[in-house]
């Protein structure tokens, strides 16, 4: 009986020690779990906050690169923290070894656990039990691992607070943008910032608001897209363009703004750049007469807010009535110049539209220069054969336009102004290139007199 009582006492002591080790194991595992969860969440939350914030301030490519880097880093950190948590997961043996090391118990606990779980209890087992129990205070849970909350939890809280602030402001900003976007959804506007049409007077101002019907704008957008597609060279360029589109879509989804479109340069020209390419019977070499036919950049159907002051400058954009209709390349007309539906447009005032009297158109065509603006481009519907271009006269011109679809007036950043390429306007019919004067012939009657003078 006494043996049984003593054995029970030994087992009771063993239970005390093992329960203390189990409590330590629970705390260690709790800390490991907290570490894995909080480090992973902090990394993901921090990365998300930075990505959202950067969507408002960075360009598409930079934003995409940063988002990829941060996402990769967050995933790697989360994976690493999970792996580390798994590695730090403790068994009773591990917890005992940790307690041995931290309390300098020289392997007493590890031996106790190891022997309990399958080892051989020798004659020294009671001695080991008593020896270990006498040092019970040294391996108390609060002494071995005093922390209940893992340190990454505080980092997570800080990250969560910062992320909440970022998300709050981002949400507000997004709602504002969405509201502005929905308000302007019915009105299609085209902001051609930096439009520069030579040879207009630069003093006329560089900001010209171009309004047009949605169909025209759609055609313009399609044309711009075609032009953009045509500007992609090679798989790398395609990849970059696709990446930019993806990033732009993502940014717009986050910020609520319209997708960012890069500035495009349009070059509006007459059909023929060179006089030698002019077909007989085509439009006269006047500024306003030739555009529209086959010129993919000519735009029709709009109106200019510049008024008549811009008429001369805008005249090259205007299409003749015959050619001002939507051309085969899609775009037709801009600023209402030469539009058949806008006879009072400035361009029509300067030039001769289809409603203009024949004599006016004829005179204008014959007069050349500024009077020829808007003279029309359909020689077949006018008055006979078009006048062949005079030698040295200019029959075409080039116009560079930097156009961009406006984003409801809330564009994040105006497209960078790039000066248009230099356009060499050809001479008109009344202009001659500089050339030396030819020596005048000496009259035969005066020839003897002049010879005498020089012989003296």
């Amino acid at each position, binding site marked *: 009986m006494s043996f049984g009582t003593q054995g029970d006492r030994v087992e009771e002591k063993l239970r005390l020690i093992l329960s203390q080790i189990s409590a330590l194991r629970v705390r260690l595992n709790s800390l490991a779990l907290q570490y894995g969860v909080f480090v992973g969440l902090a990394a993901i939350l921090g990365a998300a906050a930075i990505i959202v914030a950067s969507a408002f301030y960075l360009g598409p490519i930079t934003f995409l690169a940063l988002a990829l880097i941060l996402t990769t880093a967050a995933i790697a950190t989360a994976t690493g923290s999970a792996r580390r948590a798994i590695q730090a997961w403790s068994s009773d*043996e*591990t917890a005992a*070894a*940790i307690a*041995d*090391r931290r309390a300098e118990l*020289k*392997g*007493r606990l*590890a*031996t*106790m*656990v*190891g*022997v309990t779980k*399958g*080892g*051989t*209890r*020798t*004659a*020294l*087992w009671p*001695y*080991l039990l008593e*020896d270990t129990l006498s040092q019970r205070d040294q391996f108390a849970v609060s002494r071995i691992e005093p922390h209940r909350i893992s340190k990454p939890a505080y980092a997570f809280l800080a990250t969560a607070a910062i992320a909440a602030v970022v998300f709050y402001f981002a949400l507000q900003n997004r709602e504002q943008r969405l509201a502005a976007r929905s308000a302007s959804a019915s009105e299609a506007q085209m902001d051609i910032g930096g439009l520069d049409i030579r040879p207009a007077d630069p003093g006329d101002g560089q900001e010209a608001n171009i309004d047009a019907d949605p169909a025209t704008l759609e055609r313009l957008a399609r044309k711009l897209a075609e032009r953009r597609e045509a500007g992609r060279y090679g798989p790398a360029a395609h990849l970059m363009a696709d990446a930019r589109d993806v990033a732009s879509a993502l940014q717009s989804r986050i910020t609520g703004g319209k997708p960012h479109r890069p500035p495009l340069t349009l070059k509006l020209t007459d059909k023929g750049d060179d006089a030698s390419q002019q077909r007989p019977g085509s439009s006269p070499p006047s500024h306003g007469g030739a555009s529209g036919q086959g010129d993919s950049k000519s735009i029709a159907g709009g109106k200019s807010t510049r008024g008549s002051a811009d008429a001369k400058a805008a005249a090259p954009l205007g299409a003749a009535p015959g050619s001002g209709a939507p051309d085969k390349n899609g775009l037709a007309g801009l600023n209402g110049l030469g539009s058949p539906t806008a006879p009072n447009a400035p361009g029509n005032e300067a030039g001769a539209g289809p409603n203009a009297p024949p004599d006016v158109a004829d005179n204008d065509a014959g007069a050349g220069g500024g009077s020829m603006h808007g003279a029309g481009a359909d020689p077949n519907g006018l008055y006979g054969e078009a006048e062949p271009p005079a030698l040295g006269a200019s029959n075409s011109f080039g116009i560079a336009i930097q156009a961009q679809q406006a984003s409801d007036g809330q564009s994040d950043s105006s497209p960078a102004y790039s000066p248009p390429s230099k356009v060499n306007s050809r001479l008109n019919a009344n202009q001659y290139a500089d050339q030396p004067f030819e020596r005048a012939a000496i009259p035969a009657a005066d020839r003897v007199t002049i010879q005498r003078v020089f012989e003296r």
Partner: protein
Amino acid sequence: MNQAALETPTVADFARTFRRIQAEIHKVIVGHEQAVEEMLSALFAGGHVLIQGVPGTGKTTLVKTLGIALNLSFNRIQFTVDLMPADITGTRVIIASDDGRREFSFQPGPVFCHILLGDEINRATPKTQSALLECMAELQVTVSGISHPLEPPYFVMATLNPIEMEGTYPLPEAQLDRFMFKAALEYPDERQLVRIVSATTGPEEAGVEPVFTGSEAPARIEALKHLVREVMVAPAIELYAARMVRATQPASLRHIAPPAGAARVDAVERYVSFGSSPRGAQALIMGAKVRALLDGRANISCDDVDLVAPAALQHRVMLNYAAHSDGIDAAHVVERVVQSVRAGRP
């Protein structure tokens, strides 16, 4: 002292007895504390010791003093080139009986004792050196097909002179592996030398008192040896010792399975041709058990294993030519092994 006390010594008894033997030895032996501790550890762990030291460092004196302190029978063999195995183990001789008949009778050799000193063991031929193998490993001597058991405790101490290499025969690996520890006796420092001179040149030599009485000495020592085996070892510590032994083996050995997850030591890969045998792991654990008892514990720790590793593994590591050319010794390699394995502790 009653019989029960003899059979079941306590941890405190062990430490007290050990320290007392140490004190008696140090009455004669000045310095060499570590060598003495290793020698006694090997004794209580049931192993044997190889003592290496230059002449005059007290190798023979140490062994003789130990024999006196333990009050055990002691024999000394001076190994020479012409020493034969029968000179050690004993042989059968013709003896005339009282009735005039002559018959073969086994005449025990000097190995039949409790403590055997093999002085300058490397001067004997390998054949003679190998005569000790059976004694050390199996505590018996077989002559003419008849095995003669040795009386426990049986403790062999052999000395090596590292300087006079001419006319010597290096111990074969199998012989070296039989020694649990290899202790090194270094030259004493100045203060120790003064103490040696004053203790040995006076009219009276220091007297060593036996710790045990003559009759109970073998039983007491056997009981203490049994207590050492009672010390418990956690599986993690056994794994630690096994990992340390594996770390002494270069991965290039064909007959050794590639170590999976074992510590790789550059010094081992470069300088070791053969690592420790499993006897090395046994020596680590048994030596650690003695150290645990001396510390008042009934369990061993990784630190105990680390402490006995140099003595247990140095002579079991066979260095290659690169090590000799680079001036690398076994102690350096074992130190690197211990550092490497210690870094992988749980």
